[in-house]
């Protein structure tokens, strides 16, 4: 709130790019199943801490990038990610004040909502995937949230 000079758009873009790389990095099967959605977590972090920088646009375009990389229906991740970014931006002041543990729980909820939207769109597109494996990353994502905030706080010079 006081010193925003270091929260530059470039820095944010850089972290988002790194998160995207981590999200599409080829991994062995078992590792890929537990890989947290790095990009989603990063976008949520920026929406909660500095909503004026990226906001819903950041969510939309990050989701679009994921769609292109994953070969999903164009707009699928974009819709899911902009939906949870919207909630995060709207409630960012409440979320910011919560202790880290509660934040992680909120992130868990957001990730489940995100995955549910993807799941619903998958069903609509005619290839439903009911494997329970797809939900694992919501848990690992919530677990990694404290670490992610610490790392991303560093990039902002905190």
């Amino acid at each position, binding site marked *: 709130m006081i010193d925003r000079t270091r929260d530059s758009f470039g820095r944010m873009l850089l972290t988002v790019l790194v998160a995207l790389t981590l999200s599409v990095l*080829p991994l062995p099967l078992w590792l890929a199943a537990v890989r947290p959605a790095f990009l989603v977590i990063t976008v949520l972090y920026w929406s909660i801490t500095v909503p004026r920088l990226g906001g*819903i646009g950041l969510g939309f375009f990050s989701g679009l990038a994921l769609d292109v990389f994953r070969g999903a229906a164009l707009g699928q991740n974009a819709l899911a990610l902009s939906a949870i970014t919207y909630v995060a931006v709207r409630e960012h002041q409440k979320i910011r004040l919560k202790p880290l543990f509660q934040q992680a729980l909120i992130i868990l909820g957001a990730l489940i909502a995100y995955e549910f939207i993807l799941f619903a769109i998958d069903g609509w597109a005619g*290839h439903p995937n009911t494997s329970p494996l797809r939900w694992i990353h919501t848990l690992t994502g919530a677990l990694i949230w404290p670490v992610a905030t610490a790392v991303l706080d560093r990039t902002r010079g905190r």
Partner: protein
Amino acid sequence: MAAYGTGNYRASQGRVTAPGFGFTVYAILAIVLMVLDRRGGWLTHARYYLSAAAYPLQLAVSSPGQAWNWTQESLTARETLEAQNAALRQRNRELSVKAMRFEALERENAELRGLRAALPAVADHWMAAEVVDVELNGLRQRLLINRGAHNGVFRGQAVLDSFGLLGQTTRVSPWSSEVILVTDPEHAVPVEIERTGVHTIAVGSGDPDSLALPYLPANADVKPGDLLLTSGLGGVFPQGYPVARIADVRHDTAQPLAQIRAIPLARLSALHEVMLVWFQDQHPAAPTQLKDGASSSGNPALQRQPAPPLDLLPLPALPRLTPAPPVAAPAAASAPGKSAR
């Protein structure tokens, strides 16, 4: 804009535009994109360029693995290389001898079928492609390879490795293409059981080591060890390429259909190089190419063939699906094969 903003939000932080409005716009945009993508119109072209833009990052992301392979290769000891070289030479000799025999067999086959000359090979030319990225999870079994539209790759092209059928290209970008593997849950290959000539469909299971054959009746003549070949139906793969070998057949008395699992011959989980194949369009065993993304059903060249004279058919073609007596089975199997050529 103000109509969508929540009051307390705007009061506390006036510089941020109301999120509700932005969300509405982006959500509508995303939904429109999805609907258009499903229709597959001009958005296919947009995706073509978008995936071209994404390709550098995909290359960069896969580079650690490639660098590791390269280092390993360049650090291989001289003796290992020599041993490898000797083994490859040996294999080459074996294959040449086999190929010699193969030509003779082909001529003999043509004579037996009453053709004046043996047909040329159905494959016109080949191109090796390197695997850039592998995605092998339960939902999607895809490869990204480093050949694209600039190399003449087209959508729905057959991709093989040296052991069998791998899959087909689904999305072609300028310099890369996405290959859907036969084991992808959304993929199905029309196959033929080599021993009996029974036609069925092999569906991907999402597991890189297994294919399912869900459409065979419980009394179908299938045994573990049977070889599955592409049947040439469906218009993507030409006839006669090996796909998988039956691993186990289970008969559940409550189920009308047998539960059959097959193991793909292509080494799906250890891939570095794949082969893209172009087929001769005029060849009877060639698949019809897809035009403008519209899928064709079957090869029209095949369908125009007149039926063979009745005296050539020792048995009606129908009993193929039932376990035929061992002597009658090959004869019955050859009948539909003949009508297809």
